[in-house]
C-alpha cells in the first residue's frame, strides 16, 4: 500500500520536471520586463528564488527517482519535424541528469544569493549600478541554458543548452566590457572564450552530424540502443563521433589544447567565475562524456585518448597555477587541472569517480571562487578606506591591483570567516582527509593505478602541485604581514556573502559522504543510468577503497603543504625582510623555470603566432586582395560596371543615335524635302491651278479616248 502510494507520488513528481526550465525562465523574464522598477534586493531575490525553486523541483525529481530509479522522459514539444527526422524537446530524467540538475541549481542558488551582496558592491566599484539587473538576467539565463543542457533527451537539444551556456559565458565574461586592459581587455577576453569555444562546438557539431548519419537519430535512448549493432558494422564511425566529441569537450571543459580561454574568463565578476567557470558550465564536457558512455565504451582508443588529454591537462595547468600572482588566475588554472582529473576519470571509464569529483569540485571550487571574491572586495574596501583617510596616498593606491596576491597578506585577522572557509576549500581541493576532495580524487587515483601506471604517476604529480599552490595561495593571502595599506585595512564581507560561503564550506567538508568507500551511495545511484545500458559490457566497476593509494595521496598532499609552508612562510618571510617589493621565493631559486610557468609556457603567444596572426594576415589578404582588388575593383568595377557601361554606350551611340534616331530624322527630312519640292506647285495663281486642272482633264480624256477605247 505504502509502496504504491510513493510510486504514484514519484510519477507525478516526474511530470513537474519541465519546471526546471520554466522557473529560471520566469525569473529572467520578470527581471527583464519589470526589473527596472524593482530594487536591487527584489531583483536578486527573484533571481535567487527562481533558482531555489528549480532546486526544489530537482530535489523532487531525486525523491521520485529513489522509488523509480530507471527514470523517464517527459516529452515537452515537437521541435523539428522534417520528413523522417522528428526531434522532440523532452526532459530526460535519470540519475545522471538529476545529479547535474541538483548541482547546478543547488550550487547555483547559493551563488545567486552570494551575488546579491557581491554585485551590490561590484556595480558601485565599477561605477554603473544600472547593470545590477542585467547581471541577474544573464545569471538566470545561464541557469536556463544549463538546465536545458543537462535535461536534454537528445544531442540537438543538448547542443542548444551547450551554445546557450557558451553565450551566457561570453556575456558575463564581458560583463564589464568597457573595463579591463586598454578599456577593451574584458571584451577581448569574452571574444577569446567565445571563439575558442566555437572551435570546440565545431567538433561537437561534426560529432552530432556523424552520429545522425550513422544512427538516424539524435535521441539518447535510441542511439544507445543501437550502439552495439552499429559498432560491429562501423567501428570507425563511432571512433569518429567520439573523437569529434572530444574536441567539443576540450573546448567547453577547457582541456588541452583549447583551455586558453578559461584563465582569461576570470575577467567576469567573481560569482560568474564560481558558477560558470568552475562549478557548472565547464563540467558540461564531463557530463557529455558520461552521458555518451555507451559510445565511448565500444572504442577503447578514444577512451584512452580522453584519459590522456585529461591527465596531461591536469599536470600542465597545475604547474602553471604555481607561478601565478592573480588570486583568481590561480583558481582558474586549478579549475582546468581539476577538470583534467574529471576528464581523465571518465576517459578511464570511471564515470562514477568523474561525476563524484564533478560534484565535490563544484562545492569546493565554488567556495574558493566566492571566497576569493570576498577577499577581493575586502581589499577593495580597504583600498577605499585608505583613499578616504589618506588623500595623499590616492595616486599610489590607484595602481594597486586588488586581485594581486602580492598586495595581500595577513588577511587572516581582518577576514576571519573568509579565511576559515577558504582554508576548508583549499584543504578539500588539496585532498586532505576527510574533506570532500579527498574521497573523489582518491577514487580517480585508485582507478588510474589499476589502469595505467603512467596516468597514475602524472595525476599524482598534479595532485602534489595542487596541494602546493593552494598552500602558497593561503599563505600569500592570509598569513604573514599585510603587504599593502589596502590589505591592512581590509574588512570582512557582509552576512549575505558569508552565509553561502559557510553553506558551501559545510558541503565541502561533508560532500565526500556521498560516496564513502563501502557504502557507495553515489555509485549505486548513478549505476541505474550508467550500468543498466547494454552497451557497457563490463559496466562501471565500483572502486573499492585502497588504503595504499589513499595513504600515498594523503602523504603527497601533506608533503606539498609542508613544502609550501616552508617555502612561503619561512623563506618568503626572510626574503620579504630583505627586499622592499615582494619576490616569490621560487623566483629566486628557479628563475627560468618560474618565468616559464609565470608566462604560462607562452601558449597564448604560440597560438597567436600559429593561428591568430596567420589568420589575421590571411583575412587581411582576403580583404585587400581578393575582396577589394579582385572582387570589388576587377570583377564589380571592371567587369560588371565597365561592361554595362560599354553595353549602354553601344546601345546609346550606334543603336539609339544611329539607327532609331536615323529613322525618325530621315523620315522627317524626307517629308521636309518632299514638301519643299511640292510647295513649288502651290504658286497661289488661280490660273496655274486651272491649267493643272485643264491639263489633268486633257490627260484623263486622252486616256479614256485613246487607251481605253
Amino acid at each position, binding site marked *: 500500500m505504502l509502496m504504491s502510494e510513493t510510486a504514484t507520488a514519484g510519477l507525478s513528481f516526474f511530470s513537474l520536471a519541465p519546471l526546471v526550465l520554466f522557473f529560471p525562465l520566469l525569473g529572467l523574464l520578470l527581471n527583464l520586463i519589470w526589473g527596472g522598477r524593482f530594487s536591487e534586493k527584489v531583483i536578486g531575490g527573484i533571481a535567487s528564488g527562481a533558482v531555489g525553486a528549480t532546486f526544489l523541483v530537482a530535489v523532487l525529481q531525486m525523491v521520485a527517482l529513489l522509488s523509480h530509479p530507471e527514470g523517464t522522459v517527459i516529452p515537452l514539444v515537437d521541435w523539428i519535424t522534417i520528413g523522417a527526422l522528428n526531434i522532440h524537446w523532452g526532459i530526460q530524467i535519470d540519475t545522471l541528469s538529476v545529479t547535474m540538475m541538483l548541482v547546478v541549481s543547488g550550487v547555483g542558488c547559493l551563488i545567486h544569493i552570494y551575488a546579491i551582496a557581491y554585485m551590490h558592491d561590484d556595480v558601485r566599484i565599477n561605477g554603473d549600478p544600472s547593470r545590477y539587473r542585467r547581471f541577474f538576467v544573464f545569471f538566470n539565463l545561464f541557469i536556463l541554458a544549463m538546465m536545458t543542457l543537462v535535461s536534454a533527451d537528445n544531442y540537438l537539444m543538448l547542443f542548444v543548452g551547450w551554445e546557450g551556456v557558451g553565450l551566457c559565458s561570453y556575456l558575463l565574461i564581458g560583463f564589464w566590457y568597457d573595463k579591463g586592459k586598454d578599456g577593451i581587455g574584458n571584451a577581448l577576453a569574452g571574444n577569446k572564450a567565445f571563439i575558442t569555444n566555437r572551435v570546440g562546438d565545431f567538433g561537437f557539431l561534426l560529432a552530432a552530424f556523424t552520429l545522425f548519419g550513422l544512427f538516424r537519430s539524435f535521441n539518447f535512448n535510441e542511439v544507445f540502443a543501437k550502439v552495439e549493432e552499429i559498432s560491429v558494422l562501423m567501428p570507425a564511425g563511432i571512433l569518429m563521433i567520439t573523437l569529434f566529441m572530444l574536441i567539443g569537450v576540450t573546448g567547453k571543459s577547457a582541456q588541452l589544447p583549447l583551455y586558453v580561454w578559461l584563465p582569461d574568463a576570470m575577467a567576469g565578476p567573481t560569482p560568474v567565475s564560481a558558477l560558470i567557470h568552475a562549478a557548472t558550465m565547464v563540467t558540461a564536457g564531463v557530463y557529455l562524456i558520461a552521458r555518451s558512455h555507451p559510445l565511448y565504451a565500444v572504442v577503447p582508443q578514444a577512451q584512452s585518448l580522453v584519459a590522456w588529454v585529461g591527465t596531461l591537462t591536469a599536470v600542465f595547468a597545475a604547474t602553471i597555477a604555481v607561478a601565478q600572482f592573480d588570486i583568481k588566475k590561480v583558481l582558474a588554472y586549478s579549475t582546468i587541472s581539476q577538470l583534467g582529473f574529471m576528464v581523465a576519470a571518465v576517459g578511464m571509464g570511471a564515470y562514477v569517480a568523474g561525476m563524484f569529483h564533478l560534484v565535490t569540485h563544484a562545492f569546493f571550487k565554488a567556495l574558493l571562487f566566492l571566497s576569493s571574491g570576498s577577499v577581493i572586495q575586502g581589499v577593495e574596501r580597504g583600498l577605499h578606506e585608505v583613499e578616504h583617510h589618506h588623500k595623499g596616498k590616492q595616486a599610489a593606491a590607484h595602481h594597486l591591483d586588488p586581485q594581486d596576491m602580492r598586495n595581500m597578506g595577513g588577511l587572516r585577522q581582518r577576514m576571519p570567516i573568509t579565511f576559515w572557509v577558504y582554508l576548508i576549500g583549499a584543504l578539500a581541493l588539496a585532498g586532505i582527509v576527510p574533506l570532500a576532495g579527498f574521497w573523489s580524487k582518491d577514487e580517480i587515483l585508485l582507478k588510474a593505478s589499476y589502469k595505467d601506471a603512467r596516468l597514475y604517476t602524472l595525476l599524482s604529480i598534479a595532485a602534489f602541485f595542487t596541494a602546493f599552490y593552494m598552500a602558497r595561495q593561503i599563505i600569500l593571502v592570509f598569513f604573514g604581514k599585510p603587504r599593502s595599506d589596502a590589505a591592512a585595512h581590509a574588512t570582512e564581507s557582509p552576512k549575505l556573502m558569508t552565509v553561502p560561503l559557510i553553506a558551501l564550506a559545510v558541503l565541502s567538508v561533508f560532500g565526500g559522504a556521498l560516496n564513502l568507500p563501502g557504502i557507495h551511495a553515489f555509485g549505486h545511484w548513478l549505476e541505474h543510468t550508467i550500468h543498466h545500458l547494454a552497451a557497457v559490457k563490463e559496466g562501471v566497476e565500483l572502486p573499492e577503497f585502497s588504503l595504499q593509494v589513499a595513504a600515498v595521496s594523503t602523504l603527497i598532499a601533506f608533503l606539498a603543504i609542508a613544502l609550501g609552508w616552508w617555502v612561503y612562510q619561512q623563506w618568503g618571510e626572510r626574503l620579504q625582510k630583505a627586499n622592499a617589493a615582494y619576490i616569490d621565493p621560487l623566483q629566486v631559486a628557479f628563475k627560468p623555470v618560474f618565468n616559464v610557468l609565470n608566462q604560462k609556457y607562452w601558449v597564448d603567444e604560440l597560438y597567436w603566432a600559429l593561428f591568430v596572426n596567420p589568420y589575421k594576415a590571411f583575412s587581411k589578404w582576403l580583404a585587400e586582395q581578393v575582396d577589394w582588388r579582385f572582387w570589388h575593383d576587377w570583377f564589380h568595377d571592371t567587369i560588371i560596371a565597365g561592361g554595362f557601361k560599354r553595353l549602354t554606350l553601344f546601345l546609346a551611340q550606334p543603336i539609339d543615335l544611329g539607327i532609331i534616331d536615323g529613322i525618325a530624322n530621315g523620315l522627317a527630312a524626307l517629308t521636309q524635302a518632299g514638301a519643299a519640292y511640292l*510647295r513649288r506647285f*502651290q*504658286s*497661289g*495663281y*488661280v*490660273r496655274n491651278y*486651272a*491649267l493643272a486642272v*485643264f491639263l489633268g482633264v486633257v490627260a484623263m480624256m486622252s486616256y479614256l479616248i485613246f487607251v481605253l477605247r
Partner: protein
Amino acid sequence: MVPIYYYIALSAILFTLGSLGVLIRRNAIIIFMSVELMLNAANLAFVAFARMHGGLSGQIFVFFVMAVAAAEVAVGLALIVKIFETKHSIDIDQMNMMKG
C-alpha cells in the same frame, strides 16, 4: 440641213476660246465670261446631239446648265464685288493668299 460637224466644230472652237480665256486672262470678270463661253460651247454640243438623235434629254440638260450657270454667276459676281471691296482690284493674280 446643216451637218452635225459644223455644230461640233463651232462648239470646239468656242470651248477652246473659253478655256484659253480662263487660263490666260487676269481679269476676274473676263474669266467669268470665258467660263460662260465654255458652258455655252457645251450647251451647243448638247443641243446639236439632241437634235441629231431626236431625243429630249440633251435639250433638258441645257436648261439645267443655264440654271446652274446663272446661279454660279450670281455667287461669282458677289465674290468679285467683295474682293474688289477689300483689294481694290479684281486682278486674279493678286489673290494668292492661300499660297503654300
